[in-house]
C-alpha cells in the first residue's frame, strides 16, 4: 500500500487529493495535511472585499468531503519535511492542540500556496502595516470594513484617494488587484459617490495589461488588439488613473513610497490602499537523515520547490526556451516529491524584468491562477498514480503548453455587471511554435469584455464549489 501525503488543500492540493483517491481507491492511503479545515474559493474574495458576497459563501468544510472520498485529513500546519530514502515523513503542528503530528509518505505533494510576505515591504498589510489585502478571507473582511468606512466618508462629501495594485517590486497577482479596483469603481458608481473618489492603479507591470504574463495580443477583426491599449481604454472610460513600472518600497500611514523604472523615488498619498504582497514559498525545514539541512536540494532562495525546470537562465535565453518550464513538477533530487500550484519554483518571470539604476529589480513574478494550479494538481496526481501502477509517468504539461481561461470581474451584478473574459494559449509564450509578436496562438487567444463575463464569473463560483465538494460529475468540470 502506497502512502501519499498532500500538504495544502487549495486549488492545487485539493484537486490532487481528489484525483489521487478517485484513481487509487482504498488500496492506497491518501492524506491531506492542511492548516485550514475549510476549502477557500479565493476568486470570490474580490466580492467579499467590496461587501457584495458574504464570507461564508466562499468556504466549505473539508472534513465531510474527505471522509466521503476516503482521504485522511490532518488539520495541522506542516513544519518539517524529512525527504531521505527510508525515512520519509512530514511533521506538522496540530491546529488547536499544537501537538506534533507525523505523516509518513511514499509520495509527497507540496501544494501549500504562497506565504504572503507582507514583511517584504515595511508598513504593508493589515496586521503589522497600514494597507489592506484580499489574499486571505480575514483580510478580505477587514478590507471590506475599511472600504465601507471610506464610502461613508464619501457620502459625507469627503474626497478619498483609493490606491490598488502591487505592494512589492516583485509581486504578482495583478489580475486580482485589477478585479478589486474595477469592482470598487462599479460599487462607487452604484452608490452615487464615484465623483468623490480618485482611483489609482499602482503597479510593477512594465505596461498596463501586462498582468505578469507579458500582456496579451488578440485578433480583433483584421487588427491586433493589445491588452495595454484595451486596459488603457477601460481605465480612461472609468476615470481611473494609473502608474505602472513602479515598485512599492515602504508604506507609512497615508503615504506609499516607491521607486520607478527610471530609479526615481517618489511617494503617493492614499486614504485606502489594497496592495498585493510579494509571494514566497512556505518556510518549512527540510531535514536529512543525519539531521542536516537539505533545503538547497529542494527549494530555491524564495522557498519555492525546485522541480524539473531549467533554472538560472538569463531572461533573454529563457524567453526563447519554453521547454525550460517544468512539465511533470517533480523535484530532481527527490523524485517522489512533487510541487503543484504556486508552491513550485518557476524558472523565471514571464514578463520582461527590469533592474533600476539603483539595482532594484522591479519585475512582476509569474502568476499561477486557480485554473493553472488545478491543472498542475491533476497532472501531479495522475503522475503519482502512474508511478504506483506502472512505474513511469505519462502526464506532462508545461505552462508553455497550457491554456488558461481567466475571467476578471468588473462588477458582479447579473443585470448590469461586467467582466473581461480572457483565453490565453499558451500561458508562457512560445515563439518557436507561434512566431507572432506575442508568442501565442492568435486563433485561440481571446479577450472580451461584457455582461456575459459577469454571468460566467457567477456561474464559476457555484460550479467550482460543486466540483471541489466532489459532488456527482465533478470530474467533468474542467480545472
Amino acid at each position: 500500500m502506497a502512502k501519499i501525503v498532500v500538504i495544502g488543500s487549495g486549488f492545487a492540493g485539493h484537486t490532487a487529493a481528489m484525483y489521487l483517491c478517485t484513481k487509487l481507491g482504498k488500496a492506497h492511503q491518501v492524506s491531506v495535511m492542511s492548516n485550514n479545515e475549510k476549502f477557500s474559493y479565493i476568486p470570490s474574495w474580490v466580492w467579499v472585499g467590496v461587501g457584495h458576497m458574504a464570507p461564508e459563501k466562499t468556504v466549505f468544510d473539508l472534513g465531510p468531503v474527505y471522509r466521503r472520498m476516503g482521504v485522511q485529513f490532518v488539520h495541522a500546519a506542516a513544519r518539517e519535511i524529512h525527504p531521505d530514502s527510508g525515512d520519509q515523513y512530514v511533521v506538522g503542528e496540530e491546529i488547536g492542540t499544537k501537538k506534533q503530528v507525523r505523516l509518513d509518505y511514499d509520495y509527497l505533494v507540496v501544494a501549500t500556496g504562497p506565504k504572503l510576505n507582507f514583511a517584504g515591504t515595511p508598513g504593508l498589510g493589515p496586521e503589522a502595516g497600514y494597507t489592506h489585502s484580499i489574499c486571505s478571507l480575514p483580510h478580505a473582511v477587514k478590507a471590506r470594513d475599511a472600504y465601507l468606512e471610506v464610502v461613508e466618508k464619501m457620502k459625507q462629501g469627503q474626497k478619498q484617494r483609493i490606491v490598488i495594485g502591487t505592494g512589492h517590486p516583485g509581486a504578482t497577482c495583478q489580475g486580482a488587484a485589477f478585479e478589486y479596483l474595477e469592482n470598487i469603481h462599479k460599487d462607487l458608481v452604484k452608490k452615487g459617490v464615484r465623483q468623490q473618489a480618485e482611483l489609482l492603479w499602482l503597479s510593477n507591470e512594465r505596461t498596463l495589461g501586462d498582468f505578469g504574463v507579458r500582456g496579451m495580443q488578440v485578433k480583433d477583426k483584421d487588427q491586433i488588439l493589445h491588452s495595454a491599449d484595451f486596459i488603457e481604454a477601460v481605465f480612461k472610460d472609468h476615470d481611473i488613473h494609473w502608474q505602472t513600472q513602479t515598485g512599492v518600497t515602504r508604506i507609512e500611514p497615508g503615504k506609499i513610497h516607491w521607486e520607478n523604472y527610471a530609479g526615481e523615488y517618489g511617494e503617493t498619498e492614499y486614504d485606502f490602499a489594497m496592495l498585493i504582497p510579494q509571494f514566497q514559498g512556505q518556510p518549512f525545514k527540510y531535514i536529512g537523515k543525519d539531521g542536516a539541512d537539505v533545503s538547497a536540494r529542494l527549494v530555491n532562495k524564495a522557498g519555492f520547490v525546485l522541480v524539473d525546470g531549467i533554472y538560472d537562465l538569463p531572461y533573454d535565453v529563457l524567453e526563447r526556451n519554453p521547454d525550460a518550464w517544468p512539465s511533470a513538477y517533480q523535484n530532481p533530487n527527490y523524485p517522489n516529491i512533487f510541487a503543484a500550484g504556486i508552491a513550485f519554483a518557476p524558472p523565471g518571470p514571464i514578463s520582461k524584468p527590469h533592474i533600476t539604476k539603483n539595482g532594484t529589480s522591479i519585475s512582476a513574478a509569474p502568476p499561477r491562477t486557480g485554473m493553472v494550479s488545478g491543472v498542475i494538481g491533476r497532472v501531479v496526481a495522475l503522475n503519482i498514480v502512474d508511478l504506483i501502477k506502472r512505474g513511469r509517468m505519462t502526464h506532462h504539461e508545461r505552462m508553455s503548453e497550457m491554456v488558461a481561461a481567466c475571467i476578471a470581474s468588473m462588477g458582479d451584478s447579473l443585470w448590469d455587471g461586467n467582466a473581461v473574459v480572457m483565453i490565453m494559449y499558451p500561458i508562457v509564450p512560445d515563439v518557436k511554435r507561434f512566431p507572432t509578436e506575442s508568442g501565442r496562438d492568435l486563433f485561440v487567444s481571446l479577450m472580451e469584455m461584457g455582461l456575459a463575463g459577469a454571468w460566467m464569473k457567477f456561474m464559476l463560483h457555484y460550479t467550482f464549489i460543486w466540483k471541489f465538494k466532489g459532488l456527482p460529475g465533478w470530474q467533468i468540470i474542467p480545472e
Partner: protein
Amino acid sequence: MLLSDKYKKRMSSKLFQFWRFIVLNIKILRAVDHSKRS
C-alpha cells in the same frame, strides 16, 4: 484607443451578451479540452 459607444452598447445588450455567453463557454471548453489531453 477608446471604448466606442457601439462597443459599450454590445457589452450591456442582454440578447447579444446571451449569445456571447454561449459562444465564450464553448470556446473555453474547446480550449480546455486541449489541456485535458495531458
